[in-house]
């Protein structure tokens, strides 16, 4: 699937407490979570994410994106914000699993992430992992998903995959 969107750029070690603070975990309604997504980040405070994100925007982080808690509320909040794909140097393990399981594509591109800046426009093919930075002309290739993890992603998440498997 090919997507185009504007980049929200964040730094290294974006933790799940920043993505969705625990004070909002008394709900797991995706809309409630999206309303507070990235609320505790000290980046982009002049134009906070939740109030300014538009459908199709792409979230780009640095190293170890999604570290900390196992709360699936974090990728759910991002997905419910209208973000169709998250790109990072690499992801924390549980966040990565959760993204795949809920059908939020996650692409790892290592140090190439340094060539993506806040506000850049990207074209992303989530099936091939090819990322074009339309602002700078750079092209990146994400690591492909291994083995049956690709099948889970293709099914749109783990529940669909398990149900299809029978």
């Amino acid at each position, binding site marked *: 699937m090919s997507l185009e969107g504007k980049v929200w750029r964040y730094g290294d070690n974006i933790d799940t*407490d920043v993505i969705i603070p625990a004070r909002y975990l*008394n709900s797991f309604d995706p809309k409630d979570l999206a309303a507070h997504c990235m609320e505790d980040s000290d980046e982009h405070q002049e134009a906070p994410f939740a109030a300014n994100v538009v459908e199709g925007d792409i979230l780009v982080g640095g190293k170890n994106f999604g570290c*900390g808690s*196992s709360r*699936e509320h974090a990728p759910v909040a991002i997905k419910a914000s209208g973000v169709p794909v998250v790109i990072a140097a690499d992801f924390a393990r549980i966040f990565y699993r*959760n993204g795949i*399981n809920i059908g939020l594509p996650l692409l790892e591109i290592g140090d190439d992430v340094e060539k993506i800046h806040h506000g850049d426009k990207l074209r992303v093919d989530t099936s091939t992992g090819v990322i074009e930075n339309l602002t700078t002309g750079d092209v990146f290739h994400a690591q492909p998903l291994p083995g049956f*993890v690709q099948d889970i992603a293709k099914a749109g998440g783990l*529940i669909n995959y398990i*149900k299809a498997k029978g």
Partner: protein
Amino acid sequence: MGMNMTEKILAKHAGLDSVTAGQLIFCQLDMVLANDVTAPPAIKEFEKIGRPVFDNTKIALVPDHFTPNKDIKAAGLAKTVREFAKKHQIKNYFEIGRVGIEHVILPEKGIVGPGMLTIGADSHTCTYGAVNGFSTGVGSTDLGVAMATGQAWFKVPKAIKVVLTGKKPKYICGKDVILTLIGMIGVDGALYKAIEFAGEGVAELTMTDRLTISNMAIEAGGKNGIFPFDEITKEYVEGRVQQPYEAVAPDEDASYEKVIEIDLSKLTPVVAFPHLPGNTHPVSEIDKIKIDQVVIGSCTNGRLEDLRQAAEVLKGHSVHPDVRCIVIPGSQQVYLDAVHEGLVDIFINAGAAVSTPTCGPCLGAHMGIMAAGEKAVSTTNRNFRGRMGHVDSEVYLAGPYVAAASAILGYIAVPEEVN
């Protein structure tokens, strides 16, 4: 090529003779855990599959995060878990009054043991490596599927070996070991990897030390953090773990991506500065940092030995007038033992608040939320931005000795500074 401890447990539960790093496998699960925050979404996903639970004796539901219910929405979450537990006759469901912090009560009650494979919808599920099991955190969808199928998929991780040597000096505890390790390798130093502990220094560590260390493997990005089975493990699990278990040891030619050595005799009490658990500093080298709150408890340091250490320092002293000190025993058993041993007397006489078991302040849920500009020394596991309350409050992570000394003096301190 031989296998390490993690590979042995994964291979056995995948029905394979051997596995190697990078391999994708499906494993049978021995225990599946969720709490009041993560179980409700897991139950929603579980119900989409439309199957019964795979085994009502192999699911643990522990409402510990927002309990005793902090608000009406949280009460709704707890009710969802309670009703599900009743409907499916979940054996290991713990109601208020019996519940404790999940990673304190599962080992304490022998629900997890050596060689067992546990997943939990809580990142600190990695705690059970201390009793020679493989355990790791997952999200709610994985958990919902596991409750229906009894299976989960894994990528066999590469492993880092941490060789411990030397004797542990006075006032050094498991927290100093793990914070020092995270300081050395960074918060992503073990990303996607197993951490396996080895060396003669392991025998220096009590089960409480080990539970603290394995608990925070995730803070280095680790998938799990596992200890070998020894006399200390045997003494702890015997009489607790009811089902038959099979301890694992690494093969002599087991493969490790990296070997790290830590000489316990060289350790000094450390504190992790905001906003990452890897921002470790020796307490002896820091400036005077005034604090507003001290929290002693959590799945990291809420066990009896942790409370004994805090009480040892607090005995005969008073909490500083500018400090709120909150002590939270990790389970009802820990609480009761602390009462019987006179630890609760010491805390209350010192001017500390003692609470019923809850995760509460650790994740900024309740029971000790901080205002803007406030600072806490906490024996919990994360010091992320806004973790314990306002986004402009700060958490400094330390062990119980340092936390108690800081409570008395009003600034971050080591026990030697008290008196």
